[in-house]
């Protein structure tokens, strides 16, 4: 089996590109603000982490508008690279516009976006669309890594993007999953999630391909896991069993003991049940050992099909910097989060960095990244 490396990573978050986002997280910034994109005036707390320039598209496709700057000048992607597209709700703009009597969008189905990206980057290799709800880009990275490890591809590009839409906002609001105050992952009084705009693109390569292309080995993707709670379609298993399985799969694949893990990037949606489930899973896998953990969604919101890739890119920065950023809003962690999550930056020692996401359908996925 070939070793798999992350060789390039780009994001666009409500705080900017990868460098600006990283600096913003270290500075304790949050992009939360009132929604101007659509009328949500009759819903409680219409707040999200949005990119204001996406509010003024006048009929342009919002996912394309987000992907264009993300992919601009993206080089050293071989034409035979596998492309995995993980945006999950790109079609809702078409649905909304047709329902309002408009002509809709030329791009609506997932494969339309995948084909458009392949054309834009002149990729002639295989393409794949993957939808695993909020786990999509995490599972997309795992699938791409599996195909590289099996020798089916030398290079793969995983791209995801989702934007805050009226469709998704009203849906999460109807489930009463949105915060009515502020998104505060792992806070003792957290009360819900905040949606966000984001896009991500990460390239994975085997060692030989990375060397041939002159690409740096930003991190080794040494293990991954995907597992299901087998419990409920929208609520996580209270005992965290699916996440425990996914984390243990990733550790086992890498041959890493729990003690070899230096840090953890949590899904941390700030819903009462999700964050409690993650803490239960951490207890099950790591016992009472405390190490630096963080979550991004108080600052950047939850970007659905893009969020796993976005957080993997942040983990690359954390590994390089030897630090994990603070978790915005976590100034009063719940008891089991004490010594793990805090609002300020924490040093990251030697060892691997785990990142995981959990989502509707009982899905969980985890990636183990190590310094190359």
């Amino acid at each position: 089996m070939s070793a798999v490396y992350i060789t390039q990573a780009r994001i666009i978050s409500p705080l900017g590109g990868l460098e600006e986002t990283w600096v913003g997280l270290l500075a304790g910034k949050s992009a939360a603000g009132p929604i101007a994109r659509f009328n949500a005036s009759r819903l409680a707390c219409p707040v999200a982490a949005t990119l204001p320039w996406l509010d003024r598209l006048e009929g342009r496709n919002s996912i394309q508008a987000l992907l264009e700057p993300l992919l601009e000048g993206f080089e050293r992607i071989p034409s035979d690279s596998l492309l995995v597209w993980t945006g999950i709700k790109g079609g809702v703009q078409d649905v909304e516009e047709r329902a309002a009597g408009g002509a809709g969008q030329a791009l609506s189905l997932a494969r339309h976006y995948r084909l458009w990206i392949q054309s834009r980057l002149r990729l002639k290799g295989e393409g794949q669309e993957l939808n695993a709800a909020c786990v999509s880009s995490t599972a997309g990275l795992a699938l791409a890594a599996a195909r590289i490890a099996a020798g089916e591809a030398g290079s793969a590009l995983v791209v995801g993007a989702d934007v805050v839409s009226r469709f998704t906002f009203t849906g999460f609001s109807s489930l009463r999953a949105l915060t009515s105050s502020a998104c505060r992952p792992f806070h003792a009084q957290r009360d819900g999630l905040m949606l966000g705009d984001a896009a991500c693109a990460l390239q994975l390569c085997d060692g030989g391909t990375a060397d041939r292309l002159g690409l740096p080995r930003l991190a080794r993707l040494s293990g991954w896991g995907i597992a299901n709670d087998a419990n409920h379609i929208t609520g996580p298993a209270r005992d965290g069993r699916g996440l425990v399985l996914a984390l243990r799969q990733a550790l086992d694949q890498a041959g890493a003991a729990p003690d070899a893990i230096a840090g953890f990037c949590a899904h941390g949606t700030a819903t009462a049940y999700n964050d409690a489930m993650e803490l239960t899973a951490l207890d099950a896998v790591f016992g009472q050992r405390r190490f630096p953990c963080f979550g991004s969604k108080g600052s950047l919101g939850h970007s659905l099909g893009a969020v796993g890739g976005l957080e993997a890119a942040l983990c690359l920065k954390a590994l390089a910097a030897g630090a994990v950023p603070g978790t915005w809003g976590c100034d009063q962690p719940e008891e089991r989060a004490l010594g793990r999550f805090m609002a300020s930056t924490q040093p990251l020692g030697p060892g691997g960095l785990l990142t995981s996401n959990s989502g509707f359908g009982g899905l969980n996925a985890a990636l183990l990244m190590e310094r190359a």
Partner: protein
Amino acid sequence: MRPVHLTGACWISGGAWGGLRHGGPPGFVPGKAPLPALEGAFPKPLARWGRFDDFTRLGCAAAGLALKDAGFSALQEPGTGMVVGSRYETLRTDREFNASSLPEGGMLASPNLFSYTLPVIVLGECAAGFNLTGPAFCVGEEGGQGLQALRAALLMLDSGKARRMIAGWIESPPGDQAAGAVCAILEMEPADLARSAGLLTGPAPHFRPQGGGERLVRSLSDLF
């Protein structure tokens, strides 16, 4: 890639259905799927069946009947996953959900319909109903009726992330196009080798039936 046993399968379409061990070969035609003979397909009643959208109902029925075809009434041990392919995914449900909220202000959106605007919900319903704890995700299909799902399922088995996978295809498209579903049960080491209908190898899937011969698989229908 290590060979994998095909131990059960089911297809459902407008007015007809079948499995490896009964019924004819798949034929996907327009019309309401019969969702037939579900007795015994589910180890326990699916409590939310009445809430399911058509996409989820088709997928759960095909998965349950395929498991039954493979000889399972319930899965006790962990490590079974499910990958489903689709082209239109939940587009019909997306449109229904979008119409459920008031145009101004966003109120009255249906929480039940919103859940089913994600194609992975069928995986969650199957996982809860059949105790599927392995890898689960949906993939896009161009026209292969489950080919991408089959490839991904074989990869999950070969990489050691699952001992058994359900590879599926579900289509519940808008308009008058044919709806249907296929599910196949793939096992690395079946407890009863007599249940094996043949061996699959990847990454470009080939099927070698017990009766001999070998053929390239272009869709899940090629397994019948």
